[in-house]
């Protein structure tokens, strides 16, 4: 039980450092210092920023934590949401760009080049926390387990009777149904969907996965599920932005990840390595 408590502490610590809603968090301090200087950060936080840059490069900027300055305009967190004025989006868009992130490995500091720029770690912190929690559980000698942070899931070891874990994939348009399931262990499975945080204005769905190039919600997909060794919600979000064709091409190019993409029409695309593992359900 102590091991589980420690794993929760590890996750809480990452949340405390990464949350933009906590004024004293590292994220808030980096944002406040944007264009003026760098902030010393913890080893975990530094690693998280480095990872996010990796994913930005892999997805050619489709995943970008500096989207923060634009995300803020939508007020997704208040449950209502605001449709920003197009001029406000145009004004903030030049503040987006992962190339401006300044990392100093020796002094372990993080800074932003442009004044007014903001990072938002919402697309990577959950998966990062899940990975750290699994590491912590393994270090405590736990042989098998499941860590589930709001649908970002990582599994290790077997269930009693040497059984695999069975995970369902949420149907993007039927909230209480799964579209498919699969058996899995020693891997993670994460999903980015347009149904998680959104509001509807004039019959149009505005969701929280913004395209860093336009500042508007990405329109190609309803959901993207990624199966990989470690939890990579940044990858599912980036591929969501890339859309079904480019996204699937990237999945197939990377040997260590597999995925399921549900496009805007509800059509399912499955990567070659996942095809034989999915069990489709009624709602498919």
């Amino acid at each position: 039980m102590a091991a589980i408590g420690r794993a929760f502490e590890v996750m809480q610590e990452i949340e405390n450092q990464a949350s933009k809603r906590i004024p004293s968090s590292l994220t808030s301090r980096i944002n406040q210092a944007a264009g003026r200087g760098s902030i010393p950060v913890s080893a975990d936080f530094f690693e998280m920023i480095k990872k996010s840059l990796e994913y930005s490069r892999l997805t050619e900027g489709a995943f970008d934590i500096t989207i923060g300055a634009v995300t803020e305009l939508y007020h997704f967190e208040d449950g209502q949401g605001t449709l920003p004025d197009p001029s406000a989006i145009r004004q903030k868009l030049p503040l987006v760009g992962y190339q401006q992130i300044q990392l100093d490995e020796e002094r372990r500091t993080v800074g932003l080049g442009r004044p007014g720029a903001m990072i938002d770690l919402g697309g990577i912190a959950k998966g990062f926390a899940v990975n750290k929690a699994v590491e912590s559980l393994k270090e405590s000698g736990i042989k098998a387990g499941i860590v589930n942070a709001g649908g970002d899931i990582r599994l290790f070891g077997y269930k009693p009777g040497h059984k695999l874990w069975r995970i369902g994939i949420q149907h993007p348009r039927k909230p209480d149904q799964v579209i498919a399931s699969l058996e899995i262990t020693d891997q993670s499975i994460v999903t980015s969907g347009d149904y998680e945080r959104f509001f509807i204005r004039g019959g149009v769905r505005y969701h929280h996965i913004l395209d860093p190039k336009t500042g508007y919600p990405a329109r190609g997909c309803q959901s993207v599920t990624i199966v990989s060794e470690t939890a990579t919600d940044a990858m599912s979000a980036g591929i969501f932005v890339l859309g079904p064709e480019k996204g699937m091409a990237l999945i197939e190019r990377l040997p260590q990840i597999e995925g399921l993409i549900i496009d805007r029409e509800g059509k399912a695309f499955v990567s070659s390595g996942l095809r034989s593992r999915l069990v489709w359900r009624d709602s498919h």
Partner: protein
Amino acid sequence: MFPLAFDQGWFGGIAIKVFRRLTWGDRILILLLMLISLGSFFFLPARGKNGRVIIQAEQGIIGLYSLDSPRRVISVSGPLGSSRVEIGGGRVRMLSSPCPNQVCTKAGWIEQQGQMICCVPNQVLIRIVGDESKENESSLHLDGVTR
């Protein structure tokens, strides 16, 4: 109908003669057997509606569907090509198959728990299991949902 047919024609005559030669023990035994066979109808699996279709291919289970779902056609790829399974209205059949003998498509519709259609050449198996069957329950159980 039965008592009427009994005293008509040559069969009726033989039947009456046989019946007269039976002892009371034989008659009770016959009655009991008739009751048991009639009563066993109540223990037959329920027909249609509340079953679940399991479709299996080479690699294992590929789909779980409710038998009473609206009409749908599911494509299953096998070593010979694509087999198409049609589910709807409480029954299921192999709609088309790339196999040479078409044994599976000729089997027609199945609708009762325990029934199955097997296409050996293309390695596709369609089975109907009860909603309460152990296999159904264990295949529906989820340890988590990614969303």
